[in-house]
């Protein structure tokens, strides 16, 4: 079993759990003022898309995939991440 765990994906998993804890703390602290809340929101969303990228590269094994497939996924993370952040900040 330990040989199964000896893979970069396990370390990535610990990072993902840690990032979830950070996001949850930032998201549940109700004492923040509106500007700090926005900053927290930016951080939380950015963290989310970093997590998405990790899942794709290490869990879905796209690190070893042909450039077209990996490229599309990386483009998705960058484009959708940017779009989500932009809409969060600037939509009205």
């Amino acid at each position, binding site marked *: 079993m330990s040989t199964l765990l000896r893979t970069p994906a396990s370390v990535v998993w610990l990072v993902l759990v840690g990032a979830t804890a950070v996001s949850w703390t930032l998201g549940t602290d109700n004492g923040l003022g509106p500007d700090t*809340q926005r900053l927290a929101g930016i951080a939380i969303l950015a963290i989310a898309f970093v997590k998405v990228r990790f899942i794709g590269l290490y869990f879905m094994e796209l690190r*070893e995939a042909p450039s077209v*497939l990996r490229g599309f996924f990386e483009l*998705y993370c960058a484009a959708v991440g940017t779009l989500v952040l932009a809409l969060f900040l600037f939509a009205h």
Partner: protein
Amino acid sequence: MTTLVETESLSTPKRVPGEPGAWIFILGDMCVFAVFFSVYLVQRAHDPELFARSQEQLNRNLGALNTIFLLMSSLLVVLAVRAVRQDAHRHLAPYLFVGAIVCGVCFVVVKAFEYHEKIAAGITPETNSFFMYYFVLTGVHLFHLVFGMGVLSVLWRLAKHENPSGLHLAFIEGGACFWHMVDLLWIVLFPLLFLVR
């Protein structure tokens, strides 16, 4: 001839995880959800106070708990796929897939409880715009998750073969990637609906 090519290539040969066809499905679904995320944020911008107020009534702890359940299930799926590939560990794979399914069941139970909490408090998809998106987006995700659990049960069956064929392995990898997609979508949905305001 082939040995020459192998020794000259220093990096691991690139391969598509699963089958190319599966990626039409996975990437396509991710794009559909990207549209959902965008539509939600545009609607939120029309009435940010309503959305922020309504969001306060969501149970963030249950949402975070569900995130942990899905992350655990994804790890189990990663380990299961690794196990299937190694003769020495293949016998562990079915148990690992079952573990992932159990995590999925936990997610469904928590979600059912969460929905029940809302409905008992008089909050339904028709209450307001925010709650429509909350119920619909988490509902569509839940549908994917249940479908994913069906896929995992197929993977569990395939993992019991002593000598899985190339096609079996490709399907297992593709199915695993679908499950990771379900996890990945929740990783965005949870902060989007529950945390950011």
